[in-house]
C-alpha cells in the first residue's frame, strides 16, 4: 500500500506540475505557435501522468481486492488516454495550419519558409 501511495504521489505531482506549466506557458508566450507548444506538449504530458496514476491505482486495487470494477477503471482510462494522445497533436496541427492560413504570422520569427511557399 505504501509503495502504491508513493507512486501515486509522484505521478500526480508530475502531472499537475506539467499541466500547470502548460497553462502558464499559454499565458506567457507571445504568439499562437509558441502557445501551442506549451499547451499541447505540456498538457498532454501532464494528462498522461495523471491518467497513469489512475491506471496504476486501478490495477493495484484490482490485485489487492480482486474486484473487477477496478480493472474496468484501468481499462477505460487506458482508452481515454489513447484517445487523448491521438487527438491532441492532430488538433494542434490543425489549429496551427489554420492560424497560418488565416493570416496570423509568428512574432519575432527568424525565418518563415511557409510564407514564402504560399501553399493553398
Amino acid at each position, binding site marked *: 500500500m505504501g509503495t502504491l501511495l508513493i507512486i501515486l504521489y509522484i505521478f500526480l505531482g508530475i502531472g499537475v506540475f506539467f499541466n500547470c506549466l502548460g497553462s502558464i506557458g499559454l499565458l506567457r508566450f507571445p504568439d499562437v505557435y509558441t502557445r501551442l507548444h506549451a499547451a499541447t506538449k505540456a498538457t498532454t504530458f501532464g494528462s498522461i501522468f495523471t491518467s497513469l496514476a489512475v491506471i496504476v491505482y486501478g490495477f493495484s486495487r484490482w490485485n489487492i481486492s480482486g474486484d473487477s470494477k477496478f480493472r474496468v477503471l484501468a481499462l477505460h482510462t487506458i482508452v481515454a488516454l489513447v484517445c487523448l494522445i491521438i*487527438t491532441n497533436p492532430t488538433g494542434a496541427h*490543425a489549429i496551427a495550419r489554420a492560424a497560418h492560413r488565416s493570416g496570423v504570422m509568428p512574432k519575432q520569427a527568424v525565418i518563415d519558409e511557409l510564407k514564402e511557399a504560399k501553399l493553398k
Partner: protein
Amino acid sequence: MKEMSRIVKTVTNFVYGFIIIFGFYIIAHGHLTPGGGFQGGAVVGSAFALLLVSYGSLNSKKFLKEDIFSLFEGFGLILFIVLGFSGLGITFFYNFLANSGGWFGDTAVIGVNPGDMNTGGVIPLMNIAVGLEVLSAFGVIVLTMARGAEFTKKKEKS
C-alpha cells in the same frame, strides 16, 4: 467545403471507426452504464460530422448517403412506436419483456451488481431504435446544413 490536410485525414480514418464502435457501445449498454439511445446516437452523429469536416462535402459523399440516413430515421422511429404499440395488449409502452426470462428478460440482481447485458425488457430494444433515429437525424442535419451553407453564402468574387 474543401478537405483538410493529410495528417488530419489519416487520423480521422482511425478515429472514425473508433467513435462509431464506442457510440454503439454506449447505445447497447444504455441500461447498464450511463448512456442510451440519445447519447450514443449523438456520438455516432458526431462521427459523421468529423468525416464531413475532414474530407469536405464532395469527398465525403462516397461515405455518407443522405437518402440512407433519412430512410433509417423513419425506420428507427417506426420501430420505436411499434415497440410502444406492441404493449397495447395491456397498455401503450408496457414493458412486456421485463422479467419474462427470454431475450433481455433476465431478472436483475437487486442492488449493486456488475451488470448483466441480458436484462431490461424492451429498454435495450428501445435504445437501439432511438439510437438509430438519432444518429441518422444528426447525420441528416449536418449534411443538409453543410449543403445549405454553400447555398446561402455570398458568391466569392473570384
